[in-house]
């Protein structure tokens, strides 16, 4: 579409209609960033619900001491797949969906740089998801080695492990291609006048995230390929008997794994940086600082991986280095939190649903940041590693962090995408139910970890019973509340109060200069940015 010259006498739209398939073929062959963005988001929500069902099954088993619901082997499959599905199937594709919809609109570009590769990036995901979820049904079931897939346990697993490896390769390829697309689009297709220091924060954070993806997804591919060859092709990367070392897997995995968690939070920072200024009716405080802070976080994220390995027997100097480097990340992250609060300070705030989720994010993500800092202290981590304290920490930053920012962005941009205002009352209800049940679920887990409950166990001593019971109740509440979000979105897609081009008084950015819903093709002529 973008190859067609704009000055054809018979008009571009007319030309577009001719070549615009309908029905299934439209979705299979689309190269339109809006279509692809929508597909990513629908896919990610389906995966979110399936990962959620796994989580609820886990919590049902953990409701009381004793084994009541599932057997330990299946329990481990559930914890493993819950992690893999949520990380690779829900959170990452959702952020890519946002990137697809929003980046061209925000920089005044007509589409992504590589529109056809964009289609391929998305359509790789459903087969990967089928492989991953299908692995439950093969002999031996899904891999049960934890989402981190440590060797040698992962080498021991049945064919579900091979399916997971294949799925990870496919999803990795999708992510790498998507990241390349994002980098090239942002560097090359900004509208005239959009200098780097005018680039919206959401685009900055995604640009930096895209570099992280390109750097580390191949490393993950390397790690799981070594597991594959240890499993089937006689190598001994992770087997001492053949001259290898299981800890090598952990180094390679976490070299990917740590930047990965920043991949999952940096776009969240970007979304929140768009929303808070809009609803405070005040510019983002410290734009340049925010860019530097995000870059510092990204760079530091490469040199902290072994804080996941404090109990593996690293030498003291190594432990100290990783402890100091990890603690250092608190500095730029803190700077960002202070800048968001300074944006709110002396603003003129209203608290529609996007702002509720953004402020909620700020509050609860920062709590996750505190527990991360506590885990960074190596001696303390010796007690907390592999306990529910860590589970609490990463759910605070990933759920209250990434997921809440995704909800914030969804409510913020739904009017632009659909042309309708969503039901504000139901949106607010979704927020309050989510934040309350989220805390009921995950706050007690800090106590469980401190008191000595390990993670990845299907059964536990009665001294852990009451907090587990509370967590399960919260989990079911949280899970059911997400059905409310589904209802709000479907209702908004189908109808609602017509949305103006700029439904939010304080919103800024090129996306608010096009009509709502955004036309199929926007910015075919790049706008001039003053």
């Amino acid at each position: 579409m973008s190859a067609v010259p704009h000055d054809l006498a018979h008009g571009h739209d007319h030309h577009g209609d001719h070549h615009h398939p309908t029905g299934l073929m439209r979705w299979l062959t689309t190269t339109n960033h809006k279509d692809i963005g929508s597909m990513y988001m629908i896919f990610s929500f389906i995966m979110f619900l399936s990962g959620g069902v796994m989580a609820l099954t886990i919590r049902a088993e953990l409701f009381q001491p004793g084994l009541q619901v599932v057997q330990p082997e299946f329990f481990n499959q559930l914890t493993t797949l819950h992690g893999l599905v949520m990380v690779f199937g829900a959170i990452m594709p959702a952020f890519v969906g946002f990137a697809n919809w929003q980046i061209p609109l925000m920089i005044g570009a007509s589409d992504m740089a590589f529109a056809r590769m964009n289609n391929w990036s998305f359509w790789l995901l459903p087969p990967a998801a089928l492989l991953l979820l299908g692995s439950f049904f093969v002999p031996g079931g899904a891999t049960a080695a934890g989402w981190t897939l440590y060797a040698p346990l992962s080498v021991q697993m049945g064919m579900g492990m091979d399916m997971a490896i294949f799925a990870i390769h496919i999803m990795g390829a999708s992510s790498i291609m998507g990241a390349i697309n994002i980098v090239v689009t942002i560097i090359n297709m900004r509208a005239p006048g959009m200098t780097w220091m005018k680039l919206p924060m959401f685009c900055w954070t995604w640009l930096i995230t895209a570099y992280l993806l390109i750097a580390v997804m191949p490393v993950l591919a390397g790690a799981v390929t070594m597991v594959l060859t240890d499993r089937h092709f006689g190598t001994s990367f992770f087997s001492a008997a053949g001259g290898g070392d299981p800890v090598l897997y952990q180094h390679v995995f976490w070299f990917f794994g740590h930047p990965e968690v920043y991949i999952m939070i940096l776009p969240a920072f970007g979304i929140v940086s768009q929303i808070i200024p809009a609803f405070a009716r005040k510019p983002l405080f410290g734009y340049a600082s925010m860019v530097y802070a995000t870059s510092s976080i990204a760079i530091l994220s490469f040199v902290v991986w072994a804080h996941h390995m404090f109990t593996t027997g690293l030498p003291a100097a190594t432990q100290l280095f990783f402890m100091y480097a990890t603690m250092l990340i608190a500095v730029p992250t803190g700077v960002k939190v202070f800048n968001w609060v300074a944006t709110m300070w002396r603003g003129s705030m209203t608290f529609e649903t996007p702002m509720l989720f953004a402020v909620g994010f700020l509050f609860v993500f920062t709590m996750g940041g505190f527990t991360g800092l506590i885990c960074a202290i190596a001696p303390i981590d010796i007690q907390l590693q592999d306990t529910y304290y860590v589970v609490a920490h990463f759910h605070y930053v990933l759920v209250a962090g990434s997921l809440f920012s995704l909800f914030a962005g969804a409510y913020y941009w739904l009017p632009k995408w659909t042309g309708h205002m969503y039901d504000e009352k139901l949106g607010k209800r979704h927020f309050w139910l989510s934040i309350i049940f989220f805390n009921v679920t995950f706050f007690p887990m800090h106590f469980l970890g401190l008191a000595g409950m390990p993670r990845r166990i299907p059964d536990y001593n009665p001294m852990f019973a009451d907090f587990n019971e509370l967590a399960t109740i919260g989990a079911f509440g949280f899970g059911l509340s997400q059905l409310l979000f589904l209802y709000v979105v479907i209702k908004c897609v189908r109808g609602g109060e017509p949305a103006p081009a700029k439904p939010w008084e304080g919103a800024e950015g090129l996306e608010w200069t096009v009509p709502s819903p955004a036309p199929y093709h926007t910015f075919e002529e790049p706008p001039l940015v003053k």
Partner: protein
Amino acid sequence: MRPTIRASVALSALAGVLAVPAVSAEDRYNLQQPVTHIAAEIYSMHTLMLFICLVIFIGVFGTMFWAVFKHRKSKGAVAAHFHENTTVEIVWTIIPVLILLGMAWPATKTVIAMKDTTNPDITIKATGYQWQWGYDYLKGEGEGIRFQSVLSTPRAQIDRGEYKGRNYLLEVDKPLVVPVGKKVRILTTANDVIHAWWVPAFGVKQDAIPGFIRDTWFRAEKEGVYRGNCAELCGKEHGFMPIEVHVLSQEAYTAWVAEQKKQMTQAQEPANAAASAATAG
């Protein structure tokens, strides 16, 4: 009369809610009571971290919620226009660095102390299996003793809902036994996949890696029974291979060692008899 009765009912209800049988409030909300100096250092370091985080939390969110309530459009607040301040950015970068330095100093000392496994009184190898621990007393008093340590909770309690004992999933048939006040060096390794040897009251957790030897150490300052878990996912029974350590007085330990040695010799005797019978015949 009535207010007093109501007050006492309320008080007893409150007491009932707060009373947790056999487990103190601290046990439920914080790290386990430390029994080694290292665990005590970790415990106080964690308390310090909590305190610092609490202060920062109150500062940041006090400010944020003040803004949430006062700087609202509905309250007539008019948005200011300021959007950057280099001095402020520098200040709130430097102050956190200083706070981190304050946290890093005690942590560094403890890391170095935790790594110092020199001059142990007793050295014991703990081997992780799928799904139990094996203990080998390698050096020091008790040298030569070796046994497997297997979960002893009856399956009926796990699978069939029978009433769970106090040490459900934290009890073994043959616990590790060590003397109080002596430096015990634990070597860890594994037979199959990675496990981890963890006793929270000691502040000790060390991965047990197949084909490699790692080490850690503890000096238990109080006699008692301390329980821990495998702390690295190792397969389906990862949650069912606990660690139980009995810390005995020196005399009781010596007696235990003598008893173990006697049992080992007795176990040898039938084998010796069979061997000599075979050679004689």
